[in-house]
């Protein structure tokens, strides 16, 4: 059994005739240290699947096991606490807090995790230096380029040293060259043992992964392992 195990997961919005099926019985296993790309057209259910894996959402039916623990029945707060320790998110829109500078944005997950101030600052600095932003610590998101913002977001995702990094179209808003750089960071993280799951509609990006999961209409069409 992998670090992430999805067992016959359904996600249904609404009821009766108005019901929309985002996921229709998806099962998937992801091993520790995997680099997985979930690929599919928009509306295929790939984002929903990632939200469920990342404990942001709960399945209507089915089970999700994270490191062997059933997380599909946890309360909101229990999921929040598990999320902060286990999963780091990188979004297409970067989703940095506009009122916080780079350093503070990276500190945020550690603040919620109750890490002491001094340790938070030290680690946030290290992480920003690691993604090549050691000279932009006190810049606000609107003073940073898209690529730089995404690197801050990656540093933030790593703040509490989670085992799993989830990327939702992490290169979607970036030009090809910048996108490649971001992807390289993901690869480096994978080499250091992080489990990476990236959602994308871009086959070229998916090609970089070791394992490609194709999803369409809420169902897994196929899994390609390299």
């Amino acid at each position, binding site marked *: 059994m992998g670090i992430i195990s999805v067992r016959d997961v359904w996600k249904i919005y609404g009821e009766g005739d108005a019901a929309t099926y985002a996921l229709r019985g998806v099962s998937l296993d992801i091993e520790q240290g995997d680099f997985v790309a979930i690929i599919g057209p928009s509306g295929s259910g790939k984002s929903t699947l990632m939200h469920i894996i990342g404990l942001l959402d709960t399945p209507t039916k089915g089970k999700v096991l994270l490191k062997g623990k059933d997380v599909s029945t946890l309360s*909101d707060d229990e999921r929040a606490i598990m999320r902060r320790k286990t999963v780091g998110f990188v979004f297409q*829109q970067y989703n940095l807090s*506009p009122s*916080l500078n780079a350093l503070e944005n990276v500190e945020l997950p550690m603040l919620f*995790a109750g890490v002491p*101030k001094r340790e938070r600052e030290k680690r946030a600095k290290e992480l920003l230096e690691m993604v090549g932003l050691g000279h932009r610590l006190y810049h606000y998101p609107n003073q940073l380029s898209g690529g730089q913002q995404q690197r801050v977001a990656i540093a933030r995702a790593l703040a509490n040293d989670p085992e799993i990094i989830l990327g939702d179209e992490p290169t979607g808003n970036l030009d090809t060259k910048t996108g490649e750089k971001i992807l390289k960071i993901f690869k480096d993280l994978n080499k250091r043992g992080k489990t990476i799951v990236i959602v994308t509609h871009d086959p070229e990006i998916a090609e970089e992964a070791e394992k490609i999961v194709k999803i369409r209409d809420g169902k897994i069409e196929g899994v390609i392992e390299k």
Partner: protein
Amino acid sequence: MDYGFLAWRGLRHQPLRSFLTIIAIVVAIAAIFTLVSLILGLQETVRGELSKLGTNRITVIPGTMVGMNLGGDVLTEEDRKAIENTPGVKNVLALQTDHATISAWGEEKGITIFGVDPDAFNKTFQSLLGGYLESGRILDRTDRGRYVALIGYSVAHDLFGKDILPGSTVYINGKPFRVVGVMKKTNSPLDAGAYIPESVFQEITGREREYVRISAELAEGANVDDVVERIKRRLKALHGGLENFRVITPEQAMERANQILGMVGALLVTIAAISLVIGAVVIMNTMYMSVTERTREIGVMKAVGATKWQIMAIFLVEAGIIGAAGGLFGEIIGFGIVKTLEGVIRASLESYSAAFPSLLVLGLVGFSALVGVISGILPARSAAELDPVEAMRQ
């Protein structure tokens, strides 16, 4: 960085709106602070003024209610004697009063005249009347039957274009009176009155001898309550069993004055508190707007591991800061208003000073912060309950 910092960043996000919200609280707290401070000061002053006159004294007035003598109840010479002879009573001053005209410097004005026994007046001037002599002398036993007057401060200094000095002659109800002395300002009706010997009072007013007030100075060590009981019993006997008079002790007078001030104060503060309710609604509105605008940010905070309570805490601290800041600035402005009004009040009440008890100063800031936090509860809850996936789609 901590919750306070995040809340502060939230406030700085919309500085004008935060400022306007704080103003709503400032107005309310300034009003409450001003009223409470002024009224507490007034109560202190009343207490001070009354205690200056001593507590070993009682006053008997006709009628069953203070200031309401509709039934024609009176106190007579017999009553005066009965009080005088009551064990525990040292000196008695019985007061008659009437309106009269006074002429000086070619002008005629209206004043209040008080008829007293000059000897009793002399003995009780210090103990019962506070010894407010400015110049000249007070009445004494040699003045019995003589046309002499001890005049109040306003009569001497304000009533006419020129001052009236001891030794000069004034005409009261057309009769010449020699002014033997002038009293100090007392901030009471005495300032616009004149004391004259009681036999003369009867002559110029043509009135029966009826007292509006009989004050008694108690003997050393006399128990006030016991003396009050004795006087009541004696007077009731004289009045055919009716208690158509009141015996007032300084404590009662103080209590009553403070009661009235307290009631007036409570009413005014209640009205001021309504503005605080408005302030609370303004905070609530601001916080709802803040939550709506930052929906996406809240979603992200939840995505990176914030629990509901942690999200709530950020917004509650934010609302609390608005309340506390409003309270603080409200008090600063209130303090300015109080100091200004204090000067105005002192013009007519010299010993007045407003009160700034630390309970008021600290309590009101704390209360204001609490109002802020309470106003923030509903908006903060709506932020905490946001679904992170939905919120991040905003």
